[in-house]
């Protein structure tokens, strides 16, 4: 990866621009001056410009990932805001939202501001999602107004669902004064039990205690009805079952203010991956059945699923190369996201490239109220440049995270992130 500061002007020639804000696709040259777009159109290079030929490449607004774990503070051996940001850039992401399951949790103003302070000099915009409850314990609401004023872009207790239905209702209502959305981890922990893979045919054949899809569906059902009842906004993270997609689809039809996301691993892999007992497939919610995977893709196609988010969850190898019960939940996802999405969604004919780009840009920006402007003169130069057709094999040299816990090593992808521009930096992969 090469990162350099744009000190003068760079001219990007012959690229195809996918502007998801205007829903427009057109060919044009873009002249960038430091961090701003100076000119768009048919531009003749002057001698002093650096010129980049983008023939066959696509330029879109920088990708946004609203669900990452940068482990900072508290677990910096697995990831830091700096290392996570490199992983984000490699994946084409210029804006990421990090979850508050740090130590201490991001549940106070100082921790919210610390995320901004630590990322100020980085070429990625890192936004904190603050906790719903103090210490993510599900008991007392955080000072949401102050946290939002300090820059929290949403509220979530991340891996810990707000189990108490009264606290959850209060959180939905109280968050209205901030205008920010509540993101509740959708797992009923009692039904989830002590399992570590999807409950189904594969778990039965492996003798592994399963996590039923029911654990997610019960929680989503409660969350939808509560949000509907108090007329509040809710976002469901990492939807994983067919029934969940259906619950959300119906809720949207009724006018509930609900949005949701899916991860690349849930639309790419199934519980079959667990047959070799590889802990890199241990994730919450678990990799589900093929029927669920197909339903997730259907949900992406019909718009029920608004966003693709990675749930990038770094863990060091010693917590993965161990027996399944002791292994951590989660996998890294930033670097492989676009390749997987292109391969599994666009090239297999499920989504158009523009639809995919919307789920990585305008849709997440709208849900969390992140800045995203159309690609026009005077706006910030915040782009991701991709080659939609390049074949490449994902291996360790493509990983910039401090951790390597991914089930996708060695897989061939069709579609690659080539470069990213943000905050007057130009980064090439």
């Amino acid at each position, binding site marked *: 990866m090469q990162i350099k500061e744009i000190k003068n002007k760079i001219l990007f020639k012959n690229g195809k621009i996918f502007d998801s804000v205007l829903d427009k696709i057109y060919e044009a040259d873009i002249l960038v001056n430091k961090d701003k777009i100076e000119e768009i159109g048919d531009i003749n290079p002057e001698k002093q410009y650096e010129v980049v030929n983008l023939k066959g490449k696509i330029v879109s607004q920088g990708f946004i990932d609203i669900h990452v774990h940068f482990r900072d503070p508290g677990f910096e051996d697995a990831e830091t805001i700096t290392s996570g940001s490199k992983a984000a850039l490699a994946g084409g992401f210029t804006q990421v939202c990090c979850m508050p399951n740090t130590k201490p949790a991001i549940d106070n103003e100082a921790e919210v501001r610390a995320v901004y302070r630590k990322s100020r000099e980085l070429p990625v915009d890192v936004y904190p999602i603050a906790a719903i409850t103090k210490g993510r314990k599900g008991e007392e609401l955080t000072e949401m107004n102050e946290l939002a004023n300090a820059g929290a872009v949403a509220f979530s207790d991340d891996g810990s669902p707000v189990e108490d239905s009264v606290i959850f209702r209060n959180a939905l209502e109280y968050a209205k004064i901030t205008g920010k959305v509540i993101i509740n981890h959708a797992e009923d922990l009692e039904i989830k039990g002590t399992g570590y893979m999807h*409950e*189904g*045919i*594969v*778990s*039965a*054949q*492996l*003798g*592994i*205690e*399963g996590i*039923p899809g029911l654990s997610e569906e019960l929680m989503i059902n409660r969350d939808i009805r509560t949000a509907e009842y108090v007329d509040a906004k809710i976002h469901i993270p990492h939807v994983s079952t067919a029934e969940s997609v259906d619950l959300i689809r119906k809720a949207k039809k009724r006018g509930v203010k609900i949005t949701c996301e899916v991860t690349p691993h849930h639309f790419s892999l199934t519980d079959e991956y667990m047959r*070799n*007992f590889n802990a890199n497939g241990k994730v919450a919610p678990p990799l589900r059945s093929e029927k669920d995977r197909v339903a997730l893709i259907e949900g992406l196609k019909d718009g029920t699923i608004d966003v693709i988010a990675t749930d990038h969850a770094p863990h060091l190898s*010693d*917590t993965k*190369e*161990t*027996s*399944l*019960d*002791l292994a951590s939940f989660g996998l890294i996802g930033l670097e492989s996201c676009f390749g997987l999405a292109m391969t599994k969604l666009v090239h297999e004919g499920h989504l158009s490239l523009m639809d995919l780009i919307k789920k990585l840009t305008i849709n997440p920006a709208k849900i969390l109220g992140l800045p995203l402007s159309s690609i026009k003169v005077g706006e910030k130069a915040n782009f991701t440049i991709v080659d939609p057709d390049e074949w490449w094999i994902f291996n360790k040299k493509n990983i910039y995270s401090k951790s390597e816990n991914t089930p996708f090593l060695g897989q061939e992808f069709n579609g690659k992130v080539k470069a990213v521009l943000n905050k007057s930096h130009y980064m090439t992969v």
Partner: protein
Amino acid sequence: MNLSIDHLLGLKGVPKEDLNAIFDTAFSFREVLDRPIKKVPTLKGITVVNLFFENSTRTRMSFELAEKRLSADVMNFSASSSSLSKGESLRDTIQNLFAMKMDVVVMRHPTPGSVKLLSQFVDAVVINAGDGTHEHPTQAILDMMSLKEKFGTLEDLNVAIIGDIRHSRVALSNIYGLKTMGANVMLCGPPTFIPYGIESLGVKITYNVDEALEFADAINVLRIQKERQGKGLLPSLREYRNVYGITRERLAKFQKNITIMHPGPINRGVEIDTDVADGSNSIILHQVLNGVASRMAILFLLAGGKR
């Protein structure tokens, strides 16, 4: 005689030819066990470590005896998995042990898949002595050997496995092995003890013990652990005995001799009554002896046969 497998991690996918080779070898070791001097020099110079991350008396003793009867050098390592602190790498623990050069490792661990994980980390023959609720292949082999001894063949034999299928490592291995050998398998127990999705293995399922007895030439009765009570899985052991307990009265309803097996340890008066466990149709003690013989066969075929 060589097996197609390098390790015995489970019975899933182990071909019939391998199982028959194990049975044939085991029956010849049975003869050795009837001799006044029960030791043979077959595995002289081979070091076997019994790596038990979970308590076991029978399986560990049976393996140790089998190893000693074959003249192997035997080492025992016992550690409750709780002493391996959370986060500590299983790989580290095991690689340390194996820096000492072992030829064979017999491993029991509370977590499914951990024995397979071990086989990827070490250069030794690995034998699964039970990995959580996944498999316990040597138990199923000794069960099948005992059935073969009694019935001559496993082809089309009707075997019912009765009890806590969900928390058992014996059930899955028996299902895989028996299906490979051409037997018909029925699972019986309360619905809370039948794993979701298990019908995908081509087994019949019933919640009615009389239906299982009607079907069966032989029944394999699993132990009901006292800890299962009160967590909603089972109201009480008394209720279990009333509905599923194998009693003389219940067996008397059927005009046939049903062969009785139990992997032990037995909870007398819960899953099976004493007079049935000790009765003339019980082959429970044959299972114990066959356990030593079949483990000798497995050790010999995997570790000795290749030299």
